[in-house]
């Protein structure tokens, strides 16, 4: 085991016993990034100087006996999190030179505990995508198969874990953007309930759906990271004021009597046979652990993608109005007037997927179409939420595949946005319902691409999905498999 292979809790034990210093761990991680990122492109920005300074500080903290579980742990953040003094691009040309004047709350909470930032991670531009191909900084590649996408939009967050370039990362999930890349890269990805983690300082895509969460090597690390970032923040009025439990207490390895729902709408024809087989095996594993299965229905599942692409694009068109070349971001070099400056700065700064979504959202919100599209979608959202609330009257968690297929090839879906959108079919409903979900490694396809299992929980039911995910993980060896890189 190299230092870069370790989980948070394993590295913490070594740091605590003074077998290794935070500076040594950070150096090992930076060397690993140097050695592998030419092939993976998980990072937009690597921050060696800042990282080594923070690691030296962490070592002093450890020497003083003021150690936290995250002290000296090398982490990396999706480039959507504002990091004071460190360039933050959201993978867009329009923010290519943006240096934030403040920190995102979630990053601040990690930093205060002594976590060490090694760099900022690649993603789809403005988190709009399922493959990390829409980045202005080039696509990220899947460490398990460099011809394949790592998933998206938090593709860098998952690829960096699979390539062992960071001990833990943060991503954001608006329609599956944590869980889907975690599944494609064989890591654990947790999307918390809407409101569980502050969105302050996270560049907004679709504000009623965006949520921050961890991507990690195992479920224990996800529990540690969630506990560190969760909680009310006066700077985000949609963050919910309720106590944060110690999520590591849910790692009981006991799912006896747990009622797991299997929604018929998620086990469809056209599901990849290797994915289907992994799900069948997972169900057997849980049965062996004493969990009970209940057949359920989430009848409005088939409408979720349509609903999502109206709500998310409408919110995006409004959120991205701020990129106008006035206060920050790209401005065209020779504006002839204010309107010209807006239109051409945005034309030059945004990539085509971002433009497409702004156009769709602007259309859905425009006079004469608002009721037919945006309002209709918000009503369907109510029905989708209702499906979940009804299901949770009889089950504790819901088990589904994360994606219909393992990672597809780079370039395969670029020309057909609708096919790309449909790859998020199993993750989008959770965001619309505002509830929580976790992706856990559950197998490999015949040609060695990772497959993920999704567990969806009640609103603020993170403890239950962590418990269920952990028990599965401990009963299997998939999380110990390493990408051949």
């Amino acid at each position, binding site marked *: 085991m190299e230092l870069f292979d370790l989980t948070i809790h394993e590295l913490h034990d070594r740091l605590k016993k003074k077998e290794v210093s935070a500076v040594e761990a950070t150096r090992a991680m930076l060397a690993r990034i140097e050695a592998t990122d030419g092939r993976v492109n998980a990072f937009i920005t690597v921050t060696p100087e800042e990282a080594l300074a923070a690691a030296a500080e962490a070592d002093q903290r450890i020497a003083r006996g003021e150690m936290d579980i995250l002290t000296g742990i090398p982490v990396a953040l999706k480039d959507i999190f504002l990091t004071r003094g460190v360039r933050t691009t959201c993978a867009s040309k329009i923010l290519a*030179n943006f*240096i934030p*004047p*403040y920190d995102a709350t979630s990053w601040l909470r990690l930093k205060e505990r002594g976590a060490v930032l090694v760099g900022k991670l690649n993603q789809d531009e403005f988190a709009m995508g399922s493959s990390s191909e829409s980045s202005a900084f080039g696509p990220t590649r899947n460490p398990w198969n460099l011809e394949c996408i790592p998933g998206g939009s938090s593709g860098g967050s998952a690829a960096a874990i699979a390539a062992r370039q960071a001990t833990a990362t943060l991503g954001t999930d608006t329609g599956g953007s944590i869980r889907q890349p975690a599944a494609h890269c064989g890591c654990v990805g947790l999307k918390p*309930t*809407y*409101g569980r983690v502050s969105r302050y300082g996270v560049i907004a895509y679709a504000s*009623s759906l965006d949520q921050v969460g961890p991507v990690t090597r195992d479920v224990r690390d996800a529990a540690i990271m969630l506990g560190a970032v969760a909680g009310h923040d*006066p700077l985000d*009025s*949609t963050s*919910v004021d309720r106590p944060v439990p110690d999520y590591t207490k849910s790692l009981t390895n006991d799912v006896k009597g747990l009622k797991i729902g299997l929604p018929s709408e998620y086990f469809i024809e056209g599901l990849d046979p290797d994915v289907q087989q992994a799900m069948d095996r997972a169900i057997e594993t849980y049965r062996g652990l004493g969990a009970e299965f209940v057949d359920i229905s989430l009848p409005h599942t088939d*409408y979720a*993608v*349509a*609903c999502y*692409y*109206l709500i998310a694009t409408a919110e995006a068109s409004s959120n991205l*109005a701020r990129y*106008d*070349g*006035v*206060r*920050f*971001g790209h*401005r065209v070099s020779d*504006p*002839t*007037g*204010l*309107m010209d*400056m*807006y*239109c051409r700065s*945005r*034309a030059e700064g*945004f990539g085509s997927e971002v*433009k*497409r979504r*702004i*156009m*769709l959202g*602007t*259309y859905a919100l*425009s006079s004469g179409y608002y009721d037919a*599209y945006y*309002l*209709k*979608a*918000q*009503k*369907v*959202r*109510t*029905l989708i939420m209702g499906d979940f609330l009804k299901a949770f009257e009889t089950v504790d968690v819901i088990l589904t595949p994360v994606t219909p297929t393992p990672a597809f090839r780079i370039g395969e879906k670029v020309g057909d*946005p*609708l096919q790309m959108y449909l790859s998020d079919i199993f993750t989008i409903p959770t965001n*619309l319902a*505002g*509830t929580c979900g976790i992706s856990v490694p559950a197998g490999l396809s015949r040609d060695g691409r990772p497959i993920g299992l999704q567990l969806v929980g009640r609103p603020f039911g993170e403890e239950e999905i962590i418990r269920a995910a952990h028990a599965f993980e401990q009963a299997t060896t998939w999380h110990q498999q390493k990408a051949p890189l």
Partner: protein
Amino acid sequence: MKITRQQVENVAVLARLELSAAETETFTGQMDAILAYVDKLNELDTTGIVPTSHAVPMENAFRADEVRPSIGVENALANAPGRMEEFFRVPKVIE
């Protein structure tokens, strides 16, 4: 057709996006396909259904009205593409 080239051009003005002729062409076709797909929402009767704008029910979130330090003028202007004294500088607005 769910959307015409002319409508796409109008939406681009509303969105403050200058599109090339090729982009307008591509977006018209792609938006048409996406809008045809989202039409499936009309299969559902949503009479009497209350729209959801946020998943977590929430009233107004108030906090104490206290004076606190802000990021300051220099920080706020640090990323400005154009500045003059303590202001953002933009092209002439009124002719």
